[in-house]
């Protein structure tokens, strides 16, 4: 075996650790394999976010990339707001198990007012970071079993206008570039000619640069892949065509789109950059994408969130603050705030009770006065009626008297006539 002493010495001196040469084969060269075997047992997680207008070909591209028919819904163009739809699949290729989550935007670019279009996307990404952070901060946690839902790669689908980026594209990418690895792709690239495509790519890249949008750069630090990554960085953004339909070309069946004027072959590098995208996204840099998400984007989110909550590593005098001190201070603050809130609520409650009481009293008073009023009316009516009754009684009695008198008269006149008749007859 060889031991590279000079490099070791350099490294050792850097860390203040002495390098040592081995007198024989020890066997820790199996360490990478031990690590990889453990990962195989656990399986891998990979989460891709696809942002693009409705109908631009996001789902088709995912199907083509992973050679699978994911369940796809055709979205309407009338979504009132941008939504995100996430679906998780378990894929396997020989002994590697991959838990793939594909997140698609729904209704992106369809609204009249697109000012807030980026917000649901940002919120989704932040929610996944928040989820992980919560787990990390738990007392009893299980990070190595945790289903990592953080977005590892964001494919931004650019419309093949052939001219430039839309302002929606720039605004959205600018909001996302510090949160996720952005890989821009030109969708439906078979609608652009080769020369137009070249100009289009240059225009897009210069617009991104001039607007300060940081897209994902394929890493150059590993010699094994630095060369291919450098070349690929120069081909961005990838112009892709997606298709799961197969067309016979020559004596093979290939994934392609058939037009009357010819067949666009997805895996033909002269026709589009699909193979490049697959190579970069999956075969060469998947692990780096995951690492960047964890060590850069997540750490940034975590730092900001903790600072927002008031946690610091050093106090105003720049002395290191112990976790306990910070925590105790925060906790006091929090308890005070909680108490204040509680008092506010109590006051509000008391106030509401008073108001209700007053209302009820008022209602009672009203009822009472109405009752009085009705009583008075009733008494008046009674008086009127009694008067009427009295009059009626008077009438009645005078009538009876008159009737009695009339009857008497009639009786008298009858007897008088009766005597007269008797007298005549005699």
């Amino acid at each position: 075996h060889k031991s590279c002493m000079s490099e070791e010495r350099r490294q050792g001196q850097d860390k203040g650790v002495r390098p040592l040469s081995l007198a024989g084969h020890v066997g820790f060269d199996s360490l990478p394999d031990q690590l990889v075997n453990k990962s195989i047992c656990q399986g891998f997680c990979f989460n891709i976010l696809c942002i693009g207008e409705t109908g631009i070909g996001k789902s088709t591209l995912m199907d083509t990339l992973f050679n699978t028919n994911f369940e796809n819904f055709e979205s309407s163009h009338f979504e009132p707001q941008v939504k995100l739809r996430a679906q998780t699949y378990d894929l396997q290729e020989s002994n590697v198990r991959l838990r793939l989550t594909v997140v698609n935007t729904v209704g992106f670019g369809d609204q009249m007012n697109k000012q807030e279009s980026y917000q649901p996307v940002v919120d989704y990404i932040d929610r996944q970071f928040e989820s992980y952070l919560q787990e990390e901060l738990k007392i009893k946690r299980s990070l190595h079993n945790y289903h990592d839902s953080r977005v590892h790669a964001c494919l931004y689908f650019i419309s093949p206008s052939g001219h430039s980026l839309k302002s929606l594209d720039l605004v959205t990418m600018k909001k996302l570039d510090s949160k996720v690895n952005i890989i821009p792709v030109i969708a439906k690239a078979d609608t652009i000619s080769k020369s137009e495509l070249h100009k289009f790519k240059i225009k897009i890249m210069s617009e991104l640069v001039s607007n300060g949008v940081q897209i994902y750069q394929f890493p150059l630090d590993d010699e094994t892949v630095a060369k291919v990554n450098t070349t690929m960085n120069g081909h961005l953004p990838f112009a892709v065509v997606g298709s799961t339909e197969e067309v016979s070309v020559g004596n093979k069946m290939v994934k392609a789109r058939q037009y009357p004027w010819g067949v666009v072959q997805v895996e033909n590098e002269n026709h589009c950059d699909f193979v490049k995208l697959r190579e970069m996204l999956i075969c060469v840099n998947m692990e780096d994408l995951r690492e960047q998400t964890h060590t850069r984007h997540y750490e940034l989110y975590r730092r900001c969130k903790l600072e927002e909550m008031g946690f610091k590593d050093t106090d105003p005098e720049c002395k290191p603050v112990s976790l306990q001190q910070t925590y105790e201070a925060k906790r006091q603050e929090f308890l005070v705030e909680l108490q204040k809130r509680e008092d506010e609520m109590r006051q509000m409650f008391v106030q509401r009770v008073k108001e209700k009481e007053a209302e009820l009293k008022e209602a009672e008073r009203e009822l009472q006065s109405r009752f009085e009023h009705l009583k008075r009316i009733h008494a008046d009516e009674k008086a009127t009626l009694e008067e009427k009754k009295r009059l009626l009684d008077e009438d009645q009695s005078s009538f009876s008297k008159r009737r009695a008198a009339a009857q008497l008269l009639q009786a008298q006149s009858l007897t008088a006539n009766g005597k007269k008749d008797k007298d005549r007859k005699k």
Partner: protein
Amino acid sequence: RHEYSELHNRERRELFIRGTDLFGYVGIEAVLDQMRRKTMKSGFEFNIMVVGQSGLGKSTLVNTLFKSKVSRKSCTPNYEEKICKTVKLHSVSHMIEEKGVKMKLTVIDTPGFGDQINNENCWEPIVKYINEQYEKYLREELHVNRKRRIPDSRVHCCIYFLPATGHRLRPIDVEFMKRLGKIVSIVPVIAKADTLTIEERQEFKERIRQDLASNGICIYPQKEYDEDQEEHALNEKIRESIPFAVVGTDKEHQVNGNKVLGRKTKWGIIEVENVAHCEFSHLRDLLVRSHLQDLKEVTHNIHYETYRVRRLNESNVDFSVLGLTPWLLENGTADQSESQL
């Protein structure tokens, strides 16, 4: 054209034929290589502690394990073994490399352990050291501005040297392993095993295993952490043969025309790497060739987490309480806070 991807594709197509779970070639398998390359680039750290009375051959064994002069004894010129008045811990780090794999190896020595007349509580400095490393890591992990790679000084493995008495575990052995087994992965070994015959060795091991079981001592690898059938079968075999009876040396001799590591005595040469003579190879295979990564993971996922839970509970730190509510307070979700009240 890209020579790399040409070669890549050719290799890949062969692999694709073997695995037809997806409808066609995707390239997910390549992530294994990516991972391998990244870990090789960043290197590994391994921290091993040796505990036992002086004269049991701790330094020699470590040197034999890593085929180099790793231990403190070999590093300090004119070293004289003095009996320390108390247990002091010393750690020495080295950078070693094999076939492109770089490892920072730290050996923590514990001179003075078990050497006093009164050895009560001699494990305390060791427990303190181990917990201090967990504390260091915890503090780094809790920083707002964290390092990209938190330096790992936690003890991944503690080799406990049992003298080859042939009888059973002594009180100091039981006390030490009982306490330490809860916070670190202990691998007990029978030191200077060339004083035992094979039969004596077997009986000794059997009695030790009984004593370990009857005292409820947890040693590595623990049954509860076996993840699947395969691992369980492998680890059962190991559990049935620990503690390994070892002999250490850094001297080479000629045996049958081959150079071997061995101890030369008047009655023969004890070949250290010969499994018929002693179990050194088994120990080396366990510690280095097959379970090194597992030792690190058990330390990180189990022992460190146990320490962290205890520490956070002690300080009454519960981030989830702080984590949710300020967010709510800021966003004024009244019903949530009402329900809490």
